[in-house]
């Protein structure tokens, strides 16, 4: 089958790629665009390690086809901050030691950003339910939730 030509935007950068019709957005990000910040934990939408945004909507990139990115705006962890200028969510994750192995961290950073854009003042319970699609096996979630709540407060203060 012929490859599909896709024009899209990734983290605000106009981007073009060729993919197989069956390639997932996750495959394309990791293997075509060499953006390995987005992780694969299950390939079935259960773990959230591959969380990205498509037109500001939080999705598992393993459940979206690369071809579906046509004309959309894709947001990944690489677009959120870098070592010189971290996003406040990233700073709070570091400050609260909200990561151990770190494999779920990119997905959680992306999901937390989506949460706080949708709901700047989540209760602890709302945060726990919003992030229920992002599995973490190391931390028991305690420090993650504290980081998220602290980031929310800090972002409200800055707004």
């Amino acid at each position: 089958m012929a490859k599909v030509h896709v024009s899209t935007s990734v983290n605000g950068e106009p981007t073009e790629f060729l993919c197989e019709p069956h390639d997932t957005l996750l495959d394309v990000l990791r293997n075509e665009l060499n953006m390995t910040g987005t992780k694969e934990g299950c390939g079935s939408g259960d773990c959230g390690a591959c969380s990205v945004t498509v037109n500001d909507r939080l999705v598992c990139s393993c459940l979206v086809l690369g071809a579906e990115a046509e004309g959309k705006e894709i947001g990944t962890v690489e677009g959120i901050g870098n070592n010189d200028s971290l996003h406040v969510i990233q700073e709070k994750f570091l400050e609260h030691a909200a990561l151990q192995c770190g494999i779920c961290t990119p997905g959680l950073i992306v999901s937390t950003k989506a949460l706080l854009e949708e709901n700047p003042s989540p209760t602890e319970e709302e945060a726990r339910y919003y992030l229920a699609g992002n599995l973490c096996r190391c931390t028991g979630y305690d420090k993650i939730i504290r980081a998220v709540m602290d980031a929310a407060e800090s972002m409200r203060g800055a707004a």
Partner: protein
Amino acid sequence: MSEAKDYKYVGTRRVRPDGYDKVTGRANYGADLTLPGMIWGRILRSPHAHAKIKGINTSKAEAHPGVSAVVTFQDFPEKSQGSPLAQNILANEKALYHGHAIAAVAAKTVQIAEEALGLIEVDYEVLTPVMDLDTAMADGATLINENLKTVGLPEPATEASNIAARQELKIGDIDAGFAEADVILEREYSTPTVHQGYIEPHACTVRYDENGQSMVWCCTQGHFDVRASTANLLGMELGKLKVVASEIGGGFGGKTTIYLEPVALMLSKKSGNPVKIVMDRDEVFKASGPGAATKSWIKIGAKKDGTFTAMQAKMAFEAGAFPGSPVGPGTMTVFAPYDVANAKVEGFDVLVNKPKVAAYRAPGAPQAEFASEMLINELAEKLGMDMIDIRLKNAAREGTQALYGPKFREIGFIECLEQCKASEHYQNAVAEGNGRGVGAGFWFNIGGVSSAVIHMNPDGTATLLEGSPDIGGSRASMQSMAAEELGIAPERIKPIVADTEMVAHNDTTGGSRTTFATGMAVIEAAQDVVRQFKERAASTWNVTPEQVEWADGVARNTAGDGEMTCQEICASAGRTGGQITGRGNINARGAGPSFSVHIADVAVDKDTGKVDVVRYTASQDAGRAIHPSYVEGQIQGGSVQGIGWALNEEYIYSDDGLLENPGFLDYRIPLASDLPMIDPIVVEVPNPFHPYGVRGVGEANIIPPLATVATAVGNAIGRPMPDLPCSPPRVLKAIQEG
């Protein structure tokens, strides 16, 4: 050495050195490396739980366009073919579990490789699967390995059996002990097959080089062991195989063995290309891990005042398809928290048609101590005693002879119990209708071989090379300890998990050994640097090194005037004798046991059987918390893994022995929405054999939750819950039967 001391960096909470790369997505894990010319490997897996392999025809797969290589068990060098490790990595004459690897293909794309897998013809003769302990241990059971005879029997075995080994530990006289008892309780318990559940699947990228240096990049808890095992299986010299440990996305014991690396190297050798293999989640569940399922029978005798007079256990552990369950540590830990004069434990290592079990966080201890802790809670109830008081009455302390051998040195079990008892959680009664449980855990912790090197750079910064993969934040603790010794700011020290070419051998990250043992190697390397700092300063001042004092990163001349900073010494090092490198190559002795005590309150929905943990407190003796945040993180994470084990997690097999829930949707690990905050209590009773008192905190915390939560559920519904998990159907059934 171990008295309370004020440290400048040890015991402080700082941002971990590897944190920036992890929050920005820059950190590179097992699946993140791509090499020029790289092709993709995929593995064909058995659709049967137990089957004879009568033939494998790979010719169509080999001829498929885009395929570069196909390998089977026959590609292992002949002298490796007797190795159980080789036979687990690729099946030999029999497929021994659903998902057992049969053959592997390397092709231009994953899709082509998968097409080729479909072209491999395997002629199976399906055999009866042996899926549980009772079936496996029954007389006349179908044999998984016709040549296996039980070791450890009083008389040598004559017949083949699925029981690979029997072990026994004994102290005192249990008959006399039970005769002294006012109350005797006994009960059977069971725990299911569980998985470590790391979020990152196993993955590797390799390049075979016939004449030069072959390379393996992989996610592992021990790249030196990957090198040793892989080189051994493939007949390679250690020096010709470089193994690089990528960042590791969780391991919990499951990444202490190898599955993919030799297969990828054989594919690379055949094809001439670098090869990447990444497991699917489905493959991770079917063919890696898991943690052993168990059945235990426990009997305890006690006086009216709660004093234990005798303890007895009989435990069977599933090994999976090859011998080697953690029944050994199971028998050693089952009563280890208690001071009892009379005890006897018998353990069995039993083959079943499931994946070969791998280590899982305090291997063997959660299953064993689940059973004993459950019965202790029942005994407390029977005697009208508080669950913590009965443990205080019998707790092991310094000088107690452990059933498994040695006498304990300083340990913190009583401190854990007392601090839990004094906690606000325990001081408040459990809410009406809810249930409360308490449980304890003991784990040995281990030492072993570690190596570290510190290179001082000309600007006074340090590059710290150590060889222990960092699964929970150990680079942060290495940085703190090196900073403390060198007297320079932690931020000026860059800790690196070095590959097998950059430091000498390190034992695998496991047994909660890294901060303890590799920490000691780092301390020794730093002290070696300080010794050289003093020599350089001394030679500059024409005094002896003994006349130089080193503190806060500055050398001072005690025989006259003069100060030299670390930066000044490093800047001039080239002219005072060459650059400065410190080494610490050790066999760490004196690992300190860790104890952990937990409290859980649960609410049970009586209509559905669903359990909510509403409050959870977890104490553990860390010896010394080098980085308190990551010690708390270990305690919280271990607690939640144990909560998952208690409430939800289990392998579900069909009657044909096929795994029915190989995914995170159906093998349900705890989610953020399932849990309350986990309140950690960090107890610090220093280990006398570590310069800072470190014990190791990675494992003991997963032990108590099983009995703590199951007891709480039992108390909430008024029925005991001796079989894990306390999943909604099982809890509902217990409610309805009650």
